[in-house]
């Protein structure tokens, strides 16, 4: 379902009353927030605020104790992980998780949205459309010269890009990124910002990030989390000026 088919003003993602408790500890506590189509939302907050858990809940890695996650009209809390992916949600993990034994090409090919069943994967043919799509995405993520390289030989930053590329090739409507520039060199950060800006042109993006400079560069809106709840939400200027945010996160 494309964004255009939905009525204007409908949310792409609506998280309401989301709660998850691990042995009584509420990592996410009655959390609600809404994403518009094409929006770039950044979640910030101190360590342990529950940011990564929110992404885990949306992509199905963790099951919610209560609350609802509606994505494009579908209730995600009842779906399995791969069904959530098919619904159009892509998720990048904090540490690069690419397939080290496979080449860059194969990494991207595995993520190509076709042949996802066992028999489909057996019948899957590497046709021209696949090759061209892989090459196009590889160009976007600066790896078009390294298609034949095993992913194990890539640098940390290149692995992060490759994983982003693996999301792009799935053509999800919503892309979730967990600290995409952590551990990157300055040059790599700049290239990543460039890449994200390009991605955000035609995707809705939910990012967790600590680098405030980077957040200011890309965010439409920022949600600040603290102890599993929303502490503040709004434009970057708004949250930067919020005394509560300064108190618990940004510091005086």
């Amino acid at each position, binding site marked *: 379902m494309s964004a255009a088919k939905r009525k204007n003003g409908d949310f792409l993602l609506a998280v309401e009353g989301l709660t998850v408790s691990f042995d009584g500890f509420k990592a996410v506590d009655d959390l609600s927030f809404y994403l518009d189509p094409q929006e770039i939302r950044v979640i910030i907050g101190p360590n342990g605020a529950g940011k990564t858990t929110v992404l885990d809940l949306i*992509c199905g890695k963790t099951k919610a104790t209560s609350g609802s996650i509606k994505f494009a009209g579908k209730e995600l809390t009842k779906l399995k992980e*791969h069904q959530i992916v098919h619904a159009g949600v892509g998720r990048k993990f904090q540490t690069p998780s690419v*397939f080290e034994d496979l080449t860059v090409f194969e990494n991207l090919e595995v993520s190509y949205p076709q042949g996802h069943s*066992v028999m489909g*994967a057996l019948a899957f043919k590497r046709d021209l459309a696949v*090759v061209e799509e892989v090459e196009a995405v590889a160009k976007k993520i600066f790896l078009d010269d390294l*298609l034949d390289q*095993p992913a194990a030989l890539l640098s940390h930053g290149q692995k992060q890009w490759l994983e982003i590329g693996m999301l792009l090739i799935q053509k999800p409507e919503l892309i979730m990124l967990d600290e995409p520039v952590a551990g990157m060199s300055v040059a790599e950060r700049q290239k990543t910002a460039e890449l994200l800006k390009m991605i955000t042109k035609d995707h809705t993006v939910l990012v967790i990030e600590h680098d405030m400079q980077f957040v200011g560069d890309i965010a439409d809106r920022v949600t600040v989390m603290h102890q599993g709840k929303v502490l503040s939400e709004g434009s970057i200027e708004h949250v930067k000026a919020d005394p509560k945010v300064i108190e618990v996160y940004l510091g005086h």
Partner: protein
Amino acid sequence: MKQSPILKWFVSREGLYYLALALLLVVILPVALDSFRLNMVGKYLTYAFVAIGLVMCWGKAGILSLGQGVFFGLGGYCMAMYLKLEASTPEATSIQSTPGIPDFMDWNQITALPWFWEPFNSFAFTLLAVIGVPVLLAFIIGFAMFTRRVGGVYFAIITQAIAAILTILIIGQQGFTGGINGITDLRTLMGWEIRTDEAKNALYFVTVAMLFVCLFTARLIQQRKLGRILVAMNAQENRVRFSGYDVAAFKIFVFCLAAAFAGIGGALFTLSVGFMSPSFIGIVASIEMVIFCALGGRLSILGAVYGALLVNAAKSGFSESFPELWPFAMGALFIGVVLAFPNGLAGLYQTYVMPLEDRLFKRKKAEATPAVAPVAGKPNAEKAKDYDPMIDHYSPEKS
């Protein structure tokens, strides 16, 4: 001149490895060995089926099963039941109190053929069951375990427990299964004497043919996207899951595949040895099967075949001269493989022999084809083949 792709494959390096194995099994061994020894090789080869399955399941997909003997045994028992029924004609068993049923049933005061033995009067059903029964059990185990995300060492322990359970069950239900002695005294297959030298030679070649069928099936899967997902799943299960794949379904598939191969091996084992007993399917036997695979190289299906051949040949050789020392040699072998060369013989071959081949091959190539300028703008049909899947690839620095 245009070469056909099949011909091209046969002169490729990988094709030559397969040719070498075929040459060894079809020409060299039959010429060099007498009928008795050749039958032994045939027996060893039936274990290679299990080892190929383990390469797919354990080496590629990372699912260690310590219970492959179960599936080997089920395949073997299915075949043995058919052969036993054929050997138990009323005429041949006329001295029994109930003629027409297998002798061990008669000894255990069973007076009618149990219902689950009935279908094994049909050879077609038996052939189906040789694959179907192991696959069905693998599916049930796989479904129960993998959809609950049971994996790693827990899964290995459970498969080992199942091997123990099946052995105990077979030994305990002597009247239905032949107990600890197994199902013995098998004579004919559809009227054909299986204990003559000619029959044993013929069975050897059937085994070799089936082995290549399994090898090519495994190779096909490795080459398709399916194979790459199995490898990917091994290292980054979550990434596969969040790329939109139902990981449990792929694990169930590869576990069932390994069970199918093991079942075929088991059935051929029964034919080549002439009986089937619980000692071939228990915990020790199952672990030995893992050793065949580990020694040959758990990432290489061809390596697994050589592993099964070599370990079994060593076992026979050792057991003939120093029977009491074999378990120690086996243990030392396994420790050696794990510590010194985790990728087995295939890994050693790739590290030490392949570079030599490379040098030889390159020199030849340079002589044969004077430098050709790379053609810009290749035709699209060839473009799709540019990125070869890394079959049997592994990086030496990884253990």
